């Protein structure tokens, strides 16, 4: 085997090249550039406190985008538009179960995760059993959930976060870092391990890259795909739980603002919408870049039109870099 491999220095150079062009590296470089730009325009933009608060917002986006990443890697036009609805629903349920008491946190967490998973699995079953396109199925699910929420709440905000949950989101836990960032790190580790170091992960990439090959190799693409939607629902549920802690109480449409950014974070993170390639590290970079970009645009007070232009240009530059990278890989 060693005889067929290129020389060691070439291998190292190649690995370094791959690292330099990894979506995470690119996205973080973009985030740093944006921070520097923000600091130049409005001093204090890149202060440690500001960075932590931006990362907290990115953590919420990153959690939803974890599920989105799984679903998109699984292929067959996999996409989950129902994450917004699930966030709203789970934030509502968690807030009402908790009603401001710390003692109810474990129950509320378990209930939100289970509920999110159930809704996601329902999406998955509709998609694989009834062959409903993911776009349509999850959009329909969003309508059902949001409608039900309006009926349940009569449009009035309800439920309250427990103090401990609010502290997890807003108070430093260790060395000035809030608990939510540690939680994000744990989730990131878990998702990366799942994708890269388990048989399940190998199957997920296989069904995304070529479902027929996966089927002939004895995998069950439908079952895995349904499960991926379940997991996406679960991550959205977790996000809803944390959003409750972040905002304190819940209004009906609170989750909808996460739908589009969760998809954009995955795409600028280098995961192909066609399925089969990508990973969660890139998505983390995407979530951070997107968050910094958004707060920069707010700081700049660029006005809606100016924001659109800058937002679009950043996306295009990143996507161009990925195009180049794919060329190098080919």
């Amino acid at each position, binding site marked *: *085997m060693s005889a067929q491999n290129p020389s060691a220095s070439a291998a190292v150079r190649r690995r370094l090249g791959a690292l330099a062009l990894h979506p995470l590296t690119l996205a973080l470089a973009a985030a740093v550039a944006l921070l520097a730009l923000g600091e130049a325009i409005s001093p204090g933009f890149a202060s440690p406190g500001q960075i932590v608060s931006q990362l907290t917002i990115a953590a919420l986006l990153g959690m939803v985008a974890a599920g989105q990443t799984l679903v998109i890697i699984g292929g067959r036009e996999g996409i989950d538009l129902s994450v917004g609805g699930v966030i709203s629903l789970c934030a509502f349920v968690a807030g009402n179960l908790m009603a401001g008491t710390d003692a109810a946190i474990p129950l509320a967490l378990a209930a939100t995760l289970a509920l999110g998973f159930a809704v996601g699995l329902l999406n998955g079953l509709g998609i694989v059993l009834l062959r409903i396109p993911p776009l349509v199925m999850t959009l329909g699910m969003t309508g059902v959930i949001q409608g039900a929420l309006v009926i349940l709440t009569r449009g009035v905000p309800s439920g309250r976060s427990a103090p401990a949950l609010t502290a997890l989101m807003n108070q430093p836990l260790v060395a000035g870092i809030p608990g939510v960032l540690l939680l994000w790190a744990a989730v990131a580790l878990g998702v990366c391990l799942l994708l890269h170091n388990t*048989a399940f992960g*190998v199957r997920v990439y296989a069904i995304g890259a070529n479902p027929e090959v996966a089927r002939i*190799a*004895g*995998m069950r693409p439908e079952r895995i795909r349904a499960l991926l939607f379940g997991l996406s629902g679960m991550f959205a549920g977790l996000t809803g739980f944390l959003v409750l802690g972040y905002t304190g109480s819940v209004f009906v449409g609170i989750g909808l603002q996460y739908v589009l950014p969760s998809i954009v974070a995955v795409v600028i993170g280098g995961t192909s919408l066609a399925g089969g390639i990508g990973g969660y590290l890139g998505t983390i970079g995407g979530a951070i870049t997107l968050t910094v970009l958004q707060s920069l645009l707010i700081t700049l007070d660029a006005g809606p039109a100016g924001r659109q232009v800058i937002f679009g240009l950043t996306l295009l530059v990143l996507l161009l870099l990925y195009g180049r990278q794919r060329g190098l890989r080919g």
Partner: protein
Amino acid sequence: MPLLELSDLRKRYGGIVALDGADLALEAGEVHVLIGANGCGKSTLCKVIAGSVLPDSGVLRIDGAERRFRSPREAAAAGVGVFYQELSLVPSLSVEDNLLLGREPRRFGLVDRRAVRREAERQLALFAGALGPELAPDSRVADLSADQRQVVEILKVLGEDARLILFDEPTSSLDRRQVAIFFELVRALKREGRTVVFISHRMDEIFEIGDRVSVMRDGRVVETTAVADTDPGRIVRAMVGGEAAAGGAPGAAPGTAPAPARPGDATLLRVDGLSAPRVDGVSLELRAGEILGLGGLHGQGQSALLRGLFGIEPGVRGRIEVEGRPLRRPTPADSIRAGLAYISGDRGRDGVALLRPILENLAYGLVTREGGVAFPRGRVAGRLGPVVERLGLRFGSLSDPVRSLSGGNQQKVVIGRWLATAPRVILLDDPTKGIDVNAKADLFRMVRELAEAGAAILLYSSEDGELLGHAERVLVFNGGRIVRELSGEGLTRHALNEAAYATPGATPGAEAGAAA
């Protein structure tokens, strides 16, 4: 003057010569049979006439005028109609919409639905009584049975009013009555002065409907005679060429044919009365160490049998036993755990996930066979090391995507995937499609080693040479059934080709005697 004349047609695909100076002349009002072994160039020749393949050189004349079809549309405009073996119907449309697709009768600029219905009913009436009562003009094509679809396809071509019609295996799914009606329609075409090119996998049909027959071999037309002046034996001799008519087995170098399996060896695979779509009551037994060949023309159920056995295609009936244990309604996962492996030559469809790393592609079989939660990349790579070594796989790094490999090396990845699971029975589905000579040799060397190590091999190949060179016994398929078993002295190129055109259900001995 012939209606259509082809002279000195040449066509290469990469290193493979499909047409090597083919000449053919078709007269108006004749049924011209085109016949030849797999890979002789007849389908390329048809594609040239149909306008879907542009030859590298050579001349095509219609009514004496030189023509050059750059698209099927141009050929159709010149009066060429084609019945494709791969059905060209739109499954989601109705029968009537398919029949009149692209030439719907119009009224005030809109499709005249009533005229469409009238025309469809008129056409379907041609097969009245032979189609089953549930077939109506507004039935969806997706809901039709195989024979009904084939009839619709035939009617669609007839409706095009072409002067020259190519029928590429139009009768493969039809029953006796439907074939009789079809032949009546062909005779009517002849009376109108139209020309029919007929390709079939059944010798008896060729003699029933053909006026002249052209035999192709190695990209050339080697003989054209009136059907009345020839016989099946002479046709098969022309297909095979001089060398093999003497009874030898070219392609199998002396001494390379494997030793016959020892009689005491255990039966690893037993199949009893297996039926599936395109497979009709196949029974066979396969012993440890044996390489059993599946022969016959393309698409006669060999591939369908292998895919059915492995559980890729549903709808399999009959008994399957692997090492004495029954395998009921298998799924690929069941088959893999029972010790089966399936290697297809269609790598893009069945073999590799091109975007994924070599390591993962190699590990798919292990992941299924062993289950388990963790996938420790380093340890998996270590376990696959010996397999990679044995394959002689050439690659940069195991984490490179499979698409960075050549076709032959990609195929080795598929083989390596199954080697890693130590299978007992290996199903090879035309495994050398599109790989180079060296990769082929490597593949068969490995297959031999596996057989010698006690695995049982079921090999379907569309290249006669591979069957002759590596199998000790060959089951010849026609129309989804085994029509002949050849082994030992009887396993020759000549016998393979003769058996390929045998009629399903006919007594094997009688025809073999007649042809000898």
